[in-house]
């Protein structure tokens, strides 16, 4: 039950993120929307992990009876995903700084118009 709630919230977040990337004009807003989209996929993996239970997968002592632990594999895997998403956001921000220094604007359509005129 809780797994479906989390997963549908995460699909909604991904949809809003992609909508934001397409319809924003400002480059910084596009990058923030991409961050929302990637946080949505992180939340989705947490939802997948909650499908087998909601106790934290830390075993207090050996030889215990099995409790409804949550699945450790998607949680471990999405830690990797968080780091990768963070690195891509940093790289995109570096590109934005370099574009700002050359064209003095962060508006996507203005930059494309300048690049078309240069040809």
């Amino acid at each position, binding site marked *: 039950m809780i797994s479906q709630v989390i997963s549908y919230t995460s*699909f909604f977040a*991904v949809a809003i*993120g*992609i909508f934001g*990337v*397409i*319809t924003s004009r400002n*480059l910084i807003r*596009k990058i923030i929307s*991409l961050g929302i*989209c*990637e946080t*949505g*996929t992180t939340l*989705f*993996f947490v939802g*997948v992990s909650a*499908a087998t239970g909601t106790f934290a997968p830390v075993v207090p002592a050996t030889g215990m009876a099995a409790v409804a632990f949550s699945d450790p*594999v*998607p949680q471990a*895997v999405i830690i*990797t*995903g968080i780091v*990768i*998403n963070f*690195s*891509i956001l940093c*790289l*995109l921000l570096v*590109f*934005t700084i*370099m*574009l700002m220094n*050359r*064209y003095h604007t962060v508006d*996507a359509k203005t*930059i*494309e118009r300048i*690049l078309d005129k*240069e040809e």
Partner: protein
Amino acid sequence: MDILLLPTLPIITGSIAIILHRKKRLAQVLFFLCCLAVITILLMQLNQEKTFQIGGWGDTGITVGFDALNLPFMLSSIIVAVAVSLSAMTRATYDGFFYGLIMILLGSLNAVYISRDLFNIYVTFELASIVGYILIAYGKKGKQIWAAMKYALLSSVGFSVFLIGAGLAYARTGSFSFLSLNEIGSLAGALIFTGLSVKSGLFFVSMWLPDVYDSTPAEIPLLSGIIIKAEDYLILRFITYDSFQWLAPMYLGVGAISAVIGAVYAFNARKSQRVLAYHTFSQIGFIVTASNIHGAWHAFSHSIFKGLLLLSAGKISERLKTQDLSKWKGKMTVGEYIPLLIGSLAIIGFPLTSGYVTKGGIIDSVPLTGVVMLTIASVATVISFCKFVFIPLSKRKLKLPKLLIMSYVLLSSGILFHGVIKFDYYKLGESLAVIGAGVVLYFLIRKYFRPISTKPEKLDESLVLFVGFIAVVLTMLIL
């Protein structure tokens, strides 16, 4: 256990080259030693097929393997990487960081090819993509940075969709490994395919490609090309599982359309690197239409001849300071023309080149509607390469640097070797007929060429096309 050395060895030497990035000679020596080691290990695996889990962990671990579909892709990426670095050694502006990045790219692509686990593909492919963005923006000019930014945004959106598909696959079967891909259901299969199709070089979804080929110096598009081939390898591998079989008409349709439209855009374009970029759309359409082992060998020969074309055309356009083909009349020397001629003969499917062998293999294995569209695309390819072949030459002699000649010789010998060894007479008549028809049509319609508008390549429009493609695939799911 020894196939695990294929990715880790280049990555470790690449990291050493990056940490000591002021010593250029050391980086170059390490690069060639590492390539030699990788080729040796690869040739030792030649006819084997194996799959095993690291550490024997079962579902909580990672599976790796090697089989016959991997071989052409891995060979082509090493050959192209060696050619790129031989040509880059003639430029003094690249310090040790560049060779370290190429080694890390090679290592991560090898890791994609041997991996049999969905999340491992995500991590290693993102490593390869990030190296790609850094290489595209290496020259720090405004146009290159914008091309890299467009590529990065589009690719991140695509990979988020891929992650949702991978999560759904895990939720149903409890494992990320490829062995359980037969039962993940069609929705997860659709999301995985569309998520990975952004970097695949098909027409509607990868509209970042012409800008990247247009604005970067001569060697970088070859490296971007081997990343595209890794994506096509994944598409070719996924079609063999049950959950993706319903996508087979989609592969045929998208591939055929991409082949024809790419060639039509190409013969109308005027700048040399853009023509080659549109031809990449067309040739990847050929590969995806025939999604079997023939497509894999066409990917191998495409990397090599497209690499030769890009390198030679790029060096000519850098020397003449213009990419416009109409301004090249009477200024190309014979030495620069020969690699361009060999590459053009390979791509139009002239006998005795590797393009003839692999194109014949594809046309044999495709159903009838596919054969019609691919023949139209081949004729259009011949028309547009007549633009390169029939340029008048100049009588001067120009001395090319020795390392550049070595890299041209490496790539040309790959093309001719493959073509001569596997030559057969079946398709001789067809290919000569296609070439003849193309040449005649070129002389008839060459006054009507006009460049087609580049509106679909802008950032927002390419994202909208991508979301539209997702909608089309999901509609096919319901029907």
